[in-house]
C-alpha cells in the first residue's frame, strides 16, 4: 500500500516585491517591479503511513506552515510533488477536501455571533454529512471533548480553551482521514493543552486517522508523537523516532551534581558546564554518552558528592542543536 | 491654549493625511447625491423654463455652492467619537485637562475637512466646466455675509452632532439615532432642493430650525438671493440656536460623563 502522505522534492519559493520608500520609487515599482526570492521550503522529502502521528518541528519561519498549506492544498508548490490519500492536494478536488482537515490555532472558522451548534449544522450541509452519521460523530466528539455545555453559547462568550475545543470539533465533523494541525494548542493554559493532546491521542486510536502537527509546545510533541520531522531554513534536518533524536543529533548526557560544601570546586575539568534554571541546587555538566561511566566514577572519587543524577538533555535543547547543525 | 491647538493640529493633520485614500473614496461617495439632484432639477427646469422662479442656472449654481457649503458646515464626530464612549477608551481622554469633544475631536474634524476640501477643489473645477454655471449673481458682500453664517452653521451643527454622539453614554443605538437626525437635516436644510420648492409646511418649520444654516441660508447669501429682511431674520435665528445648542450640548455632555464615571465603563 502506498503511504498516506508522500512528499517528494517539495519546494516553495515566494516572490516578494521589493519596496523602496518614496514616491518616485513607487512609480518605478509600478512599471517594473523588483522581486526578491524567498525560499520557504526546499526539496523536502518524507512519507507518512496511515495512522501515524508525526510532529513537525522547526523555528519560526522554518517553512512548517508553508508545507502544511501545500499539503492541505492552499498553496501551489513551485516545484516537486506531494500526494495525500492518492490526491494531489492543490487540485482542491472536493473528494479530497472532504477527507482531510486543516486546523489552525490562530484562525477562526466558527462565527463569533452565534452558538457553535449553528455553525456545526452549516458544516454538516457544506460537507454533505448524512444526519445519522453526523449524530454519531457528534456523539463521539462530545464524549471526548465535553462539547455539549458549550454548544448553546455564542462563540464570543467562550473562553479560549473552550473555543479551541469547538474549532477542533468543527474541523472533525466530516471524519477526515488526514488531520493537519497548525499550533492547535497555542495560547491555551497547561490543562487546556493536556486536554487537547489527550483528545488527539484518543481520536487517533479510535479512527486510525493520520495526524501531522506543528507546535511550539514540546510537551505536545513528546506526548503525542513517536516520530518527528524537523525542518530549518526550509530544509529537512531530521526525520525519525523522537527517542533516537538525542542519540543521533546530540549523543550527550547531563550529569547533575550536588556537592556537600557548595560551589567550592571547579567542575569544568570534567565536562562542559551547562545552566539549568529549574534546579539551582545542582551544577550540571554535559558529557558524551560513552564517557558517562568514566566521568561519574571520577567525580565520586574526587569530590564530596551529596547527590548525583544522570539524565538525557531536555528535548528542546536537542532540537535547538539540531537546528544549528 | 494656542499651543495646545497647534499641537493637536499637527497630530490630527498627520493622522488624516494617513487616511487620504479612504478620504478620497468618502468624497466620491458624498459627491454623488448633490450631482444627481442637480441633474434632476436642471432637467425639470430645462423643460419648463423655470420651476417656481428657479431657472436651470439657478439650480446649477445652487448645487455647485452647496458642495462647498456642506463640506464646510458638516462634521464627522459621530464616526470618530461614539465608539470611544462605547468601548470605554474615552476614559483615557477624560483624565486629560482638556475637553475631549471641544479640543481634540474638533481639531480632528477640521483637519478632515481641510483635506476633503483640498480634494474637492480639482473636482469642483471639473464640474464647473461640465455644468458651466453662471455666477454673475454672486456679490462680494454676499460672500462676506455668508462667511459668519457658515461658521455659525458649523459651530451649531458640531454642537448638535456632539450632543447626539454623547447619547452613546446611554444607548448602543446611537448610530440609528444619528441616521434619523440625518434624515431631519435632509428635510429641513435645503440639501435635496432649495427650500422654497419644499411643501409649505416644511418651509414654515424650517424657518425656525437651525438646519437651513448648514446649507440653504449660506448658499442663498452667496448667490445674493435673500432680501435684507430674510438676512436679518436668519442671523437672529442663528444667534438663538447658538445659545440653545451650547446649553443643550453642555447639559447632555455633563450628564453623560456623570453616568460614564458612575458605571465605571
Amino acid at each position, binding site marked *: 500500500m502506498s503511504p498516506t502522505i508522500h512528499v517528494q522534492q517539495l519546494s*516553495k519559493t*515566494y*516572490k516578494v516585491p521589493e519596496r523602496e520608500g518614496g514616491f518616485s520609487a513607487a512609480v518605478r515599482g509600478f512599471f517594473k517591479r523588483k522581486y526578491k526570492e524567498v525560499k520557504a521550503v526546499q526539496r523536502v522529502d518524507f512519507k507518512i503511513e496511515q495512522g501515524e502521528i508525526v510532529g513537525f518541528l522547526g523555528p519560526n519561519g522554518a517553512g512548517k506552515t508553508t508545507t502544511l*498549506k501545500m499539503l*492541505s*492544498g*492552499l*498553496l*501551489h508548490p513551485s516545484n516537486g510533488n506531494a500526494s495525500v490519500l492518492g490526491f494531489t492536494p*492543490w487540485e*482542491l478536488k*472536493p*473528494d479530497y*477536501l*472532504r477527507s482531510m482537515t*486543516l486546523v489552525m490555532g490562530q*484562525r477562526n*472558522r466558527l*462565527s463569533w*455571533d*452565534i452558538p457553535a451548534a*449553528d455553525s456545526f*449544522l*452549516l458544516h*454538516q*450541509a*457544506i*460537507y*454533505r454529512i448524512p444526519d445519522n452519521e453526523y449524530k454519531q460523530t457528534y456523539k463521539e466528539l462530545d464524549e471526548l471533548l465535553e462539547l455539549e455545555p458549550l454548544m448553546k453559547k*455564542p462563540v464570543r462568550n467562550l473562553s479560549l480553551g473552550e473555543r479551541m475545543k469547538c474549532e477542533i470539533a468543527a474541523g472533525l465533523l466530516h471524519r477526515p482521514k488526514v488531520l493537519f494541525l497548525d499550533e492547535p494548542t497555542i495560547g491555551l493554559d497547561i490543562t487546556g493543552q493536556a486536554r487537547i493532546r489527550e483528545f488527539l491521542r484518543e481520536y487517533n486510536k479510535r479512527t486510525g486517522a493520520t495526524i501531522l502537527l506543528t507546535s511550539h509546545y514540546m510537551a505536545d510533541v513528546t506526548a503525542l508523537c513517536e516520530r518527528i520531522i524537523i525542518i530549518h531554513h526550509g530544509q529537512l534536518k531530521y526525520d525519525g523516532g523522537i527517542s533516537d533524536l538525542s542519540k543521533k543529533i546530540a549523543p550527550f548526557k547531563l550529569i547533575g551534581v550536588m556537592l556537600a560544601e557548595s560551589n567550592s570546586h571547579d567542575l569544568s575539568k570534567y565536562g562542559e558546564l551547562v545552566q539549568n534554571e529549574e534546579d539551582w541546587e545542582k551544577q550540571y555538566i554535559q558529557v558524551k554518552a560513552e564517557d558517562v561511566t568514566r566521568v561519574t566514577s571520577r567525580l565520586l572519587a574526587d569530590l564530596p558528592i551529596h547527590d548525583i543524577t544522570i539524565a538525557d538533555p531536555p528535548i528542546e535543547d536537542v532540537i535547538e542543536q539540531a537546528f544549528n547543525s | 491654549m494656542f499651543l495646545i491647538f497647534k499641537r493637536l493640529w499637527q497630530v490630527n493633520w498627520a493622522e488624516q493625511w494617513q487616511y487620504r*485614500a*479612504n478620504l478620497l*473614496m*468618502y468624497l*466620491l*461617495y458624498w459627491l*454623488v*447625491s448633490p*450631482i*444627481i439632484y442637480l*441633474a*434632476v432639477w436642471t*432637467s*425639470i427646469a430645462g*423643460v*419648463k423654463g423655470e*420651476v*417656481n422662479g428657479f431657472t436651470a442656472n439657478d439650480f446649477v449654481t445652487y448645487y455647485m455652492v452647496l458642495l462647498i457649503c456642506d463640506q464646510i458646515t458638516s462634521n464627522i464626530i459621530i464616526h470618530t467619537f461614539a465608539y470611544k464612549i462605547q468601548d470605554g477608551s474615552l476614559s483615557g481622554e477624560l483624565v486629560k485637562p482638556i475637553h475631549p469633544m471641544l479640543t481634540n475631536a474638533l481639531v480632528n474634524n477640521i483637519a478632515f475637512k481641510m483635506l476633503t476640501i483640498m480634494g474637492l477643489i480639482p473636482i469642483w473645477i471639473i464640474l464647473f466646466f*461640465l*455644468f458651466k454655471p453662471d455666477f454673475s449673481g454672486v456679490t462680494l458682500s454676499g460672500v462676506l455675509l455668508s462667511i459668519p453664517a457658515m461658521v455659525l452653521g458649523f459651530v451649531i451643527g458640531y454642537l448638535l452632532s456632539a450632543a447626539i454622539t454623547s447619547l452613546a453614554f446611554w444607548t448602543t*443605538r446611537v448610530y*440609528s439615532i444619528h*441616521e*434619523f437626525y440625518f*434624515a431631519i437635516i*435632509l*428635510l429641513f436644510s435645503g440639501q*435635496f432642493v432649495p427650500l422654497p420648492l*419644499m*411643501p409649505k409646511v416644511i418651509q414654515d418649520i424650517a424657518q425656525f430650525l437651525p438646519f437651513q444654516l448648514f446649507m440653504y441660508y449660506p448658499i442663498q447669501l452667496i448667490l445674493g438671493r435673500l432680501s435684507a429682511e430674510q438676512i436679518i431674520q436668519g442671523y437672529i435665528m442663528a444667534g438663538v440656536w447658538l445659545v440653545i445648542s451650547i446649553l443643550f450640548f453642555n447639559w447632555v455632555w455633563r450628564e453623560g460623563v456623570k453616568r460614564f464615571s458612575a458605571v465605571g465603563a
Partner: protein
Amino acid sequence: MQTLKLLSAFFKMNVQMSLAYRADTVVNILLNLMWLGWELLSLNIIFSNTETLGGWGLGELIALLGVFRLVNTLMIALIWPNTEKFNQSIRDGSMDYTILQPVNSMFLVTFSRITVWRFWDLILAVVLIVVGVNMSTATTTPLQILTFILLAITGMIIIYSLWIVLIALTFWFVKFDNNVTILQALLDAGRYPATVYPVWLRIIVTFIIPIAVATTIPLQALRGELEMTQILTFILVSIVSFFLASRIWRAGLKQYSGASS
C-alpha cells in the same frame, strides 16, 4: 438540490445571527420605513413642480423606485455584509478555511452572510412596482412585463459580476478594502431615470458602474421602449460578464495560492 440545501443552511444560520440582535432589527426596519417615506415625499416634491421627469410620469418613477429598492436589497442584504466578511477573512487569514471547503468558493463568498430582515424590502419593492405600473397611463402588455423581469434579473447579474471582480482584485492588491465603495456611491443614481443625467454621468452609470442597467433599462423595457436586439444584447452581456467574473475569481484564487507566480 444540494445547492438549495446549502442555501437554506446559510439562511438558517443568518436568521440565528439576526435573532441575536433582535432589537436592532426592529430599529432598522423602522429606519427603513422612514427612508421609504422620504423617497415618496421627494417624488411628491418633484412631481408637484413638474408633470414629467425625463419623459417619465409619477407612476413610472414609483415603479423605478421599486426596481431601485430591489437592487438596493441585493446590495445591502448580500453584497455589503459579504464584502465585509470577505475583507476580514483576507485580513485574518480565515479565507484559507473558505477555500478548503468542498463547495464552490464563489458561492460561499456570496452567501455566507445574509441580512435576513432585508428580505421584507423585496415585498415593498414588488408593491411599489405594481402600484407604479398601475398608476402609469401607458398600457403594458404581458410581454413587456416579462422582458422587464428578465432585464431586472440580467441587470442584477451584471452588478453582481462587477462585485465579484471588485473583491477578486483584493487577491492581487491586499490593501484594496475600499473595494465596493464606488459601487455603493453610484447606487443612488439608480433612483432616477438615467435619461435626465448629463451624458458623461449617463455613460458612467451605464457602462462603467452599470447601475442604470439594472434600474432604468428594465423600466424602459416595461414601457416598451427597447427593441428586441437591445434586449438580447443585455442578456448576452449579463451572461458574458458572469462568465468573465468567475474566470477572474478563479485567477484570483490562483494568485492567492501562488499558482500563477
